[in-house]
């Protein structure tokens, strides 16, 4: 026994097989759903060269690269990333800035992508970078984070990145996610409750006020397309052909699926009615094809995944590792909750993808890298 305790590296490293299994299952299920949702549109459109597997191929390639990177990252001792905190922050800021240069390009009406060999969304990189950066910053400040000044000091740099993501790439949902990740990490690390509750309540109040103002305002144009989206959220059928169209079609998909759905591949809504069926709206097609049963199963899988992340975070050997895992957990929770909330019209429509499942190469690749980080933290755990 002494031998083991004195020399922990000789102990067989902890590998959370259930976490890896769920991750791989979600990625595989995602590929199936991406093919199911996109094949009809892809086969009909000249843009995709009438190749039914066009989206599947791209997603599969990104997934394979992601899995390789996940394995690779899980072997890197995670303290290596702590040293890179500052660099990660600067790199993510620069990449967001690069969108404005000719390297950036526009797709689906928004300029959010960079073409540097492969095409990536800097916002996805920023999410990972922010996890690394905030964890490092908290560890550096130690107890200092419990003061109001310390909190502001920790939240200021991510807030700046959020502002850049929002303003430069016009991607408010990613900005909210990045802010949410940082906020949750700080919440866990801090000793305080009150300040967070007050802040959350204040934010909720502000949002409520804003919504109230928009509904009372005859001229919703002042709030741009986001104002219109809020009106469409409150009454999607009144905006059935405009801003409410996508939401309403998603609701039709969910509602028409029934308890067990129409069967895998049998969705009608994906045939040209539901915009972004393979992307933000993939969950509604899951409900249409696999029913309430399928949708709730997916939610349970995410719950299980989050539980495993919580276990690893709670057992991490040091604060930095634990905070990395908390960041990943926050990232996945926020996206899953918001995505399903959008699809069910619980919150106004905003573009958030469902982790591992939605189409999007950058998203799945960086999520898998994050899972690699979690595994590298897990490897140090000794039970």
């Amino acid at each position, binding site marked *: 026994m002494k031998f083991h305790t004195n020399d922990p590296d000789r102990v067989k490293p902890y590998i959370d097989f259930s976490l890896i299994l769920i991750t791989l299952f979600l990625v595989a299920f995602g590929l199936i759903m991406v093919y199911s949702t996109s094949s009809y549109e892809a086969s009909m459109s000249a843009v995709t060269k009438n190749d039914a597997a066009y989206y599947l191929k791209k997603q599969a390639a990104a997934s394979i690269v992601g899995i390789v990177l996940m394995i690779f990252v899980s072997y890197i001792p995670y303290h290596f990333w702590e040293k890179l905190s500052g660099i990660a922050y600067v790199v993510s800021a620069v990449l967001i800035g690069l969108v404005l240069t000719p390297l950036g390009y526009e797709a689906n009406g928004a300029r959010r992508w960079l073409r540097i060999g492969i095409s990536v969304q800097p916002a996805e990189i920023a999410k990972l970078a922010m996890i690394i950066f905030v964890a490092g910053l908290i560890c550096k400040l130690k107890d200092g984070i419990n003061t109001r000044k310390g909190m502001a000091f920790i939240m200021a740099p991510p807030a700046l990145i959020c502002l850049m993501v929002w303003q430069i790439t016009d991607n408010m949902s990613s900005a909210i996610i990045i802010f949410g990740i940082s906020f949750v990490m700080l919440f866990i690390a801090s000793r305080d409750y009150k300040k967070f509750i007050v802040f959350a309540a204040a934010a909720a109040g502000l949002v409520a006020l804003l919504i109230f103002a928009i509904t009372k305002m005859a001229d919703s144009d002042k709030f741009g397309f986001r104002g219109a989206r809020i009106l469409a959220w409150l009454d999607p059928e009144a905006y059935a052909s405009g801003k409410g169209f996508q939401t309403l079609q998603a609701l039709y998909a969910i*509602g028409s699926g029934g308890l067990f759905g129409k069967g895998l591949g049998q969705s009608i809504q994906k045939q040209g009615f539901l915009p972004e069926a393979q992307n933000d709206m993939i969950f509604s097609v899951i409900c249409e094809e696999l029913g309430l049963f399928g949708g709730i199963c997916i*939610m349970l899988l995410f719950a299980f995944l989050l539980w495993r992340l919580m276990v690893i975070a709670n057992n991490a050997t040091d604060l930095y590792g634990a905070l990395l895992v908390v960041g990943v957990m926050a990232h996945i929770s926020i996206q899953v909750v918001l995505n399903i909330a959008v699809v069910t019209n619980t919150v106004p429509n905003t573009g958030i993808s469902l982790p591992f499942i939605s189409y999007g190469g950058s998203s799945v690749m960086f999520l898998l890298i994050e899972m690699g980080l979690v595994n590298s933290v897990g490897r140090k755990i000794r039970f």
Partner: protein
Amino acid sequence: MKSEKRVKRVRRIRVENGLNKDMQAKLVILFVMVLLAFAGLGVRLITITRDNGERYKKQVLSQQKYNSITLPYKRGDILDCKGNKLATSEKVYNMIIDAKVMLDKDESLEATLDALRTCFPTLDISAIRNHVTQNPTSQYHIVKKQLTYDEISAFLEMDNNNEEYPDIAGVWFENEYKRIYPNNSLASDVIGFTVRGEGGQYGLEQYYNDVLEGINGRDYGYLNEDETLERTTIPATDGYNIVTTIDANIQQIAEKYLYQFNEEYKNSARDGNGANNLGCIIMDVDSGDILAMASYPTFDLNNPRDTSRLVGMKKSELNGTVPYDAVVLTESNIEEELADDELKNANLANLWKNFCISNTYEPGSTYKPFTVACGLEAGKLTGEEYYTCNGALQVADHNIKCHNYKKGGCGTLSVKGAVENSCNVSFMLMGRQIGSPTFLEYQSKYNFGLKTNIDLYGESRTDSLIFSGDTMGETELATSTFGQGFNVTMIQMITGFCSLINGGYYYEPHMVSKITASDGSVVKTITPRVLKQTISEQTSAEIVDYCIGVVEEGTGKEARPAGYRIGGKTGTAEMVPRDRTNYLLSFMGFAPADNPQIAIYIVVDRPNSWVQDNVGFARKLCKQILTEVLPYMNIYMTEELSEKEEAELAELNITIKKATQPEEEEQPEVTDAPDVDEEGNIDPHGGDVTSSNQVTEEEMNSDDVELAPLTGNVLNVETGEAVRENTDEVPY
């Protein structure tokens, strides 16, 4: 115990280095919050399905696209008897812009617009650019309609050349058929036209609309048993082609001379066309096949609503009738006169209708062969009778004059002489012998008062326009013998006339000989149909003899084409109002005289001349048309040619064919109808003329009839007086 110790130690280490207990608690709280959120969303999913599931299910089904894409059929062609296309449907292409595809790659927009600019110089590129930039998600925008394959082929080549032009995207072409009439106005009244490629209007297009139309194919969606959408394609069925009996060359010859006639006489005595109407039918005597059916004015089938074709016509009323004193439409007044759209449509309808089958009129003396045939066939006449004409005959209260009234009448004439000289008094006397029951019996045998059922749209009914036993009195019978008082159509006249000269067989006149499918297979062959025998072969032979006499001895001399012997009958009908200023001139004939093959009927309705009652107008047209048609049909010349005639033929590029020349018999040389340019002039080049005939002095004089320079009147060769043929004081 040892293991317990170890756990404690590990926990301590963890407390020191990992999350402390507070943090762990916070993480659990966070996890529980997320689970609560999941639970809330799960409840939301359940309520959506429970509360709105059925409604949403119906919504999903109702917004499916069951509506179909139409795959257009090809309307059948209309061909002449030699297979020339009179009407055809050409595949044309509509240019569609797909903005979404065009904007997919940054380079595509400019590259595609450049290519469009090169291939379609008239295209408004900036309008396309505006459309694409303003509607970036639009996928279907028609830019240009009905482009031909030749027009788009250059662009297609560039589009398919991915090496040189990799960025062209977002332009595609949709098929459609466009109705084309390659000969524009040729046989316009016979062919008719279509509205946007379907729904035939007038003529063959309307009569045979069901045959020409195909069935559109469809590409459509439906829900199968599992309530999933499936799509099926049913290909289009093309319409059948119709092969007409029309010979485009003969038709062209006829139309050329009608056009020339109009050019010569228009605006001479009054404003407007050379005659109110001109009509010409050429028919195969032994089958009822219509070889040509021409009328003037014509219109452009490719642009039937072109009002410039109305210029020269008299303005019609809203109901389509043209009053006697109607305004003549001119280039300067047409806009004003036809400002009302309905009125414009009525006038266009008047232009589109086929004079040869739709207009009714009193035939005049061309009816006389029918009267004689009736008398001979019924045994009321023997053919040996003689009649004396003193210039007029008292019938009931009316003193009805002959055309030779001023010269003291025609004198004593045989039956043949009465026909040759077109003596009205003799015919009125024959009418007394025949009696109205027999006259009417034969009139209905000849099919007057009934439709001929020719396969063309718009044949007029004439049942109320002829006499019955109740309405025919002594006077009516008298005038009917020379074709006044009742109305006929051109097609009735020539069809009946064919039966008079072919041995008495009344063939149903028809335009279409064959219906073929788009793959060329024959669907139906329409064979000539004898409806009845009107007169015996013996009587028919008599009539042929009389009609030959008309051309050789009587009023029809001037109608004979050089080199041929023909028969026929002239007619000068007085029209309402009977103020002796409105006449309809006609000539009805057959050729060749010894073995009649074709019949021809010319009508000149109120020529544009100070003196209208001159049958020379119709005779001249007959001569001109037959001069070209008979050689074209390889009918051998039997008569000697004068030098003058030879010169005329040479000018027309007509090869002289004689049965006595064996080498030509073996290789009969077919001369196509000469090229005619816009002014109706004949191209003097091409086609060699061979002539081996010696012309005698005698022959030169016999048929040489002069025209008075100012009036256009025919002058009697012996007396130098104007030859007149008219009816007088007819009480209608």
